[in-house]
């Protein structure tokens, strides 16, 4: 269990010792993401994440990049529908300084107008890179169709037009509204005593002033009353894809553990991975010659989200056949108990994946933070104990509760014919 301390400004600190390597991994989680955005400002949280690397009143742009690079640190950030998170894994003698920098940018980022315009192009480029992928195009459309009211339907990166229209003042207001110690928590894991990790974090963050509490967004998604279907057509992809999403409960729901196990049982795999080849989906779709790869996923989210099944089709196979096979496997999981040996395998897979993640300092910090962010559990060990307590009946019942026709969305990616042209030229000669 992590050692936890709540500061007077509302910031909650969680610390875990990991003494096998001379490093410390530090993660600052803010409760703001795509879920907190409204139409017209989609992508704002993600845009802001980029701007947090563009300097503060104390440290000009680039200083942190070079400092962390000089330490050989892993130094990054990500934005999801639920959170924005900043992370660094550094040599242990550097972590106090890293904490100071995170505390500084919690309230003192410049969000300089010139930098906003420069970064806008980078974010458009990030989006355009994603648009090259048929998986992304289909997934983004499917997510939009799945949610009528909840902002989860907007995704994270935002529409290109809204990225282009994003203003500095809007970004800065978003920053000041959400980047507060009482709207964040810190996970720090590494090669020091847990009490000392907390002391160092408190020394860095205690002086940051609290702000007006941020109320969670209220946009409950009404029940879905029938299957939704969509098709994305584009020439920029050669292989057809089927994605199916079922409405699924939030991370704090009692069914979350059983659905995590259900995803492991359905599993999937493909490509160079040797793992997952005994899963139900791999056998039913890949071994049978219907698909090249397949997968199942259930993510821990703050609000009710989706349970995904997907497959990339083998050339010449019809979408309908793959869709039928995916749904058939979902129905079987909802209809029958996992046989004893398969149930034991799923439990073993969950145990092992937990150990692998925890054997990395960064992985241990991430898994702890992800559980805390969504309220799924207070620690990795608590979550793991709950996973190990899941019964085969609970897996079947959870599957039965969500794998129903009227609450599913089915998406097909259909490649279209394309032509291309090649141009060769010596460098420096006009083409």
């Amino acid at each position, binding site marked *: 269990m992590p050692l936890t301390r709540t500061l007077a400004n509302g910031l909650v600190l969680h610390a875990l010792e990991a*003494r*096998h*390597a001379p*490093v410390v991994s530090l993660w600052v989680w803010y409760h703001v993401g795509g879920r907190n955005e409204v139409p017209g400002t989609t992508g704002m949280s993600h845009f802001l994440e980029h701007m947090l690397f563009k300097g503060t009143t104390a440290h000009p742009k*680039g200083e942190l*990049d070079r400092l962390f*690079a*000089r*330490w*050989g*640190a892993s130094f990054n950030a990500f934005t999801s529908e639920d959170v924005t998170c900043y992370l660094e*894994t550094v*040599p242990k003698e550097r972590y106090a300084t890293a904490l100071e920098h995170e505390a500084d940018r919690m309230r003192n980022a410049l969000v300089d107008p010139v930098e906003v*315009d*420069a970064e806008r*192009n*980078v974010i458009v*480029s990030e989006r*355009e*890179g994603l*648009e*090259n992928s048929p998986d992304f195009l289909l997934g983004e459309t499917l997510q939009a169709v799945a949610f009528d009211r909840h902002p989860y339907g907007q995704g994270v990166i935002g529409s290109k037009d809204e990225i282009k229209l994003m203003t500095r003042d809007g970004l800065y207001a978003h920053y000041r509204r959400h980047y507060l110690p009482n709207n964040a928590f810190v996970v720090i894991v590494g090669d020091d005593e847990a009490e000392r990790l907390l002391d160092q974090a408190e020394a860095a963050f205690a002086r940051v002033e609290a702000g007006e509490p941020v109320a969670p967004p209220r946009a409950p998604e009404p029940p879905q009353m029938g299957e939704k279907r969509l098709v994305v057509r*584009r*020439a*920029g*992809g*050669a292989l057809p894809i089927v994605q199916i999403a079922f409405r699924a409960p939030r991370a704090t729901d009692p069914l979350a553990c059983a659905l995590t196990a259900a995803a492991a049982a359905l599993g999937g795999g493909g*490509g*160079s991975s*040797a*793992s*997952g*080849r*005994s899963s139900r989906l791999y056998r039913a779709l890949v*071994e049978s*010659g219907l698909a*090249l790869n397949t997968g199942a996923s259930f993510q821990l989210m703050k609000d009710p989200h989706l349970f995904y099944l997907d497959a990339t089709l083998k*050339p010449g196979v019809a979408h309908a056949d793959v869709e039928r096979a995916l749904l058939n496997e979902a129905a079987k999981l909802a209809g029958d108990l996992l046989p004893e*040996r398969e149930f034991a*395998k799923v439990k*073993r*897979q*969950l145990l*092992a*994946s937990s*150990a692998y993640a925890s*054997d*990395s*300092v960064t*992985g241990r910090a991430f898994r702890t933070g992800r559980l805390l962010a969504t309220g799924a559990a207070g620690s990795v060990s608590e979550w793991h104990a709950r996973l190990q307590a899941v019964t085969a009946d609970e897996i079947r019942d959870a599957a039965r509760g969500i794998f129903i026709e009227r609450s599913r969305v089915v998406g097909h990616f259909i*490649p279209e014919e*394309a032509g*291309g042209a*090649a*141009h*060769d*030229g*010596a*460098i420096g000669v006009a*083409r």
Partner: protein
Amino acid sequence: MIRVERRVLTDRLRVAAVEIPGVRSVSVLVALEAGQWFEPRGRAGVARLTAQSLLRGTLTHGPAAWGEALDELGAGARLDTGAHAAFFTGQCLAEDLRAYLGLVADATLRPAFASAEVEFVRTHAVAQFEEDATDTRAVADRIFRELLYPVGHPFRTRALGDEAVVRSATVDELQAHHRQAILGGRAVVVMAGAVEGAFAAVADAFGDWPAGPRSALVAVPHARFERGIRRDEVVADKTQCDVILGWLAMPRTDPRFTAARVANMVFAADTFASRAGHVVRDELGLAYYVFSSIQGTLGESPWTLRMGVNPENVERAIATVNAELAKIIAGDIADDDLSLARDKLVGELVVGLESPGGVAHQVLEAELFGLGDDHLARYPDLLRAVTKDEVVAVAREFLRLDRCAIAVAGPPLPTQT
């Protein structure tokens, strides 16, 4: 500081292990020196087809049974074919190490190569060609290799190979490659984590690896590239272009390789802290991703800079990279840029200790290329000792602006519309 224990099990199989106290798992890397470099000439794709067939059943386990046994351990495993080696990369719980190694050894030493299973692997490879034809990164990768390497050179294609070869390769050919390059070649097993009893487990699993000298190596044509050339290829219905600038690098065993790593870091290895990355992304906002990398192989492996760019910005991005490279070649390198590059590479060695996988990968390079038992101890000092003159010399010889292959794949450029 990593403490590596080593054993030579046979003249073809070396084993290295690193104990990491307090972890529950073992990261296992098995490098079979049977990558592209060891492929029969003119048969690009045979190495990968052979390697992938190892996962499709053995003389004692059908493919389903082998997969079931692996999954019952909850083990992670994948098999990738690279320029130098085919790599089993995986992780298992400490108490499962013996069983895990047994499965990996079974696949490596006793693959069945059943016709139906080879066809399964072939079908997936052919589909990958189809998918890659509309993938801008894959198209750019194909183009720069075609520009940079002569016909017959193993790095002229990606490991996926040549489609005609993949379509025509026979079971006999794959079995012959398995005998020659895998059983007759060399391999390295590296384990990091809870490795108690690991050497005995490897000995039991791989004990019947045939002994004998290494099979004769395939003669690889020398790669020479003495011109600048660019090819643009339109990939329909895409939004962004993928751009690759490629050069020929030196073998990993070349004494200049350490200086090349530092030069690569000064150039663009890090999007934010390296020169070209910083200017292209951070100053000009031309790309979300831009980075350079240099591969370690036995030959002239690719040294590349890759970036994703809107078609409107392709020319400016290329010109910017070239301008930054010209400064390095001219010796215009700030002391702080050089020290940052060295410090970052040294610091990454420390941060890499945080996971069993990170430790295993550090060990693997030294073992694979015979860099010496004391390499990991010496390596930080080797990096710190690289001088500006050495960086400039390497850049001048290997990153010449007039000997660069440029590949652009994506939507039509403004000049093409």
